[in-house]
């Protein structure tokens, strides 16, 4: 390059750009920064794997079939499991999803298409605030609202607390996903004379379904790991066994709704709750079971996450006709 024309560049700048030392220094800085960012990325990943490996090492040795199929035994008796907690977690998760999914999707649909109305703004702001509310406060709220009213702890109260925790995740993810559906798709349906609700049910929501299901599963993954709200609501129940409740119900000739009712109106246990209770006890066998419960919970949440991501990818590919 001729230097004579670049009179507006100060000599020092020009020299810096053209000199080899300047180039070396920049190359060196670049390498340093790249290394630093890579190291911190590794550090973040390392913590994740550390947790997983540690829990696997601690928990795997105490994991056996009994752990999954038996109720807790009294202290001093060997064996026993956490069947009550596993069943409780499943019941709580199913109920919470029932309560949170439909309202969440409907609210998200409204917000996605009415983002600037007063209600739309309020809902978006509200969900942001709600997702930041400490979960124990939600537990306390459900205690005051349901447990005090009912007079006892119950799976119902616990699942409503979890539903409130899931709701922001579902609303925000679903809203984002509906917004990603091309506007022209909705117009295409409306232009054929389709009413709005039909367009939502058969075009907009199916087109966003992968994202919506991701949001729901992530919400479930989050809620199923919660402990604090359950302390006030589900409480825990060492004798909870769905099989027994159903048998007893059938023996007494109760209807299906009565049986379902007695399943959801009892206090229940959940894995995080059991983990928390057992880990504070001074007995080694309880602590060991607590590690095993931690492992089961971790596997449940991780596999839910990983399964979701794989499934979404597969569906996306199929949708693109691959």
């Amino acid at each position, binding site marked *: 390059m001729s230097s004579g024309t670049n009179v507006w560049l100060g000599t020092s700048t020009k020299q810096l750009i053209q000199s080899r030392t300047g180039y070396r220094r920049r190359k060196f800085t670049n390498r340093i920064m790249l290394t630093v960012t890579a190291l911190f990325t590794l550090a973040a990943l390392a913590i994740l794997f550390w947790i997983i490996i540690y829990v696997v090492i601690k928990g795997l040795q105490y994991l056996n079939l009994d752990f999954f199929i038996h109720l807790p035994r009294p202290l001093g008796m060997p064996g026993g499991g956490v069947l009550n907690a596993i069943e409780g977690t499943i019941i709580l998760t199913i109920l919470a999803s029932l309560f949170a999914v439909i309202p969440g999707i409907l609210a998200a649909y409204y917000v996605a298409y009415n983002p600037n109305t007063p209600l739309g703004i309020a809902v978006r702001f509200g969900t942001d605030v709600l997702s930041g509310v400490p979960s124990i406060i939600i537990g306390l709220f459900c205690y005051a609202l349901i447990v005090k009213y009912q007079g006892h702890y119950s799976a119902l109260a616990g699942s409503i607390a979890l539903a409130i925790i899931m709701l922001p995740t579902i609303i925000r993810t679903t809203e984002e996903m509906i917004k990603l559906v*091309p506007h*022209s*798709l909705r*117009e*295409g*349906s*409306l*232009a*054929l*004379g*389709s*009413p709005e609700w*039909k367009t939502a049910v*058969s*075009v907009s929501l*199916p*087109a966003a379904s992968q994202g919506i299901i991701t949001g729901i599963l992530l919400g479930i993954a989050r809620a199923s790991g919660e402990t604090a709200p359950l302390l006030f609501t589900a409480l825990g129940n060492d004798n909870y066994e769905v099989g027994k409740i159903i048998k007893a119900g059938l023996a007494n000739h109760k209807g299906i709704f009565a049986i379902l009712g007695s399943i959801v109106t009892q206090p229940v246990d959940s894995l995080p709750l059991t983990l928390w209770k057992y880990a504070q006890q001074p007995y080694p066998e309880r602590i060991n079971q607590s590690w095993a419960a931690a492992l089961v919970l971790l596997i449940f949440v991780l596999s839910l996450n990983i399964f979701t991501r794989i499934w979404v990818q597969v569906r996306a590919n*199929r*949708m*693109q*006709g*691959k």
Partner: protein
Amino acid sequence: MFTNMETPMTDEKQRAPLTIPIKIAQKTIEPPHVGENKIEFRDYSFYYGKFKALGNISLQIPPNQITAIIGPSGCGKSTLLRSINRMNDLVPNVRTEGQIILSGEDIIGPSADVVDVRRRVGMVFQRPNPFPKSIYDNVAYGPRLYGISHRQGLDEIVYNALRQAALWDEVKDKLRQSAMALSGGQQQRLCIARALAVEPEVILMDEPASALDPVATLKIEELMQTLKESYTIIIVTHNMQQAARVSDFTAFMMIDSPQTRTGVMVEYGPTTQIFTNPKNKQTEDYITGRFG
């Protein structure tokens, strides 16, 4: 009817109206009279809130012809087009004045049924927008909406629509596959088939080929020539060669002034006349590329 395209026939059809306008085109917007009008705008104005987007449009669109709406960006071409199937209803705070008459019925008055209007006036959009469903379900979407559920009837409708859209041969073996796997041009023809499946009277096309390559564009244009035997077609296009190639009539729109930015109809007439012998200076400037 669509397999053997006869080019001389279309030439004739394009040339035929040439003799009519010269006699009547002394006033700026004298409507061409070819049979009865399919669509008639009567002093139609359109407002987005306080902004008057279309001002006092009067326009008579003949049946079984292709009418092109051209004009610079932002002059209200799409708004005019979307008025015909009431797609503008989706925008909040809009207001209209005047009338749009479709086959003798006012379609923007309080008595008009939006769903019925949209069934009778199909629309094809700028970018192909097939639903993320199978090819079959895309075409069957409209008929199902109107309550046709038995298999044989649907099969027949899907077959006919795809035949008419000149897509059948390409997709007959993969009707159950996702429509998203088709090429852009095939997707656009699928969207045309989807519109045809509800047996509309009018097809609106909003720059239907702007997202397509030249070969796919040509196919769409050929298709339009066969479709106009059964349908009235109105196309908005930025591409003046396309307007000249495909349309029988051309409407030229512009904004009235940079301050108000209201879209007005400047000149309307047979395409050959608009492109060879425009009556209006602005039309001439536009089509010769002096602005826009």
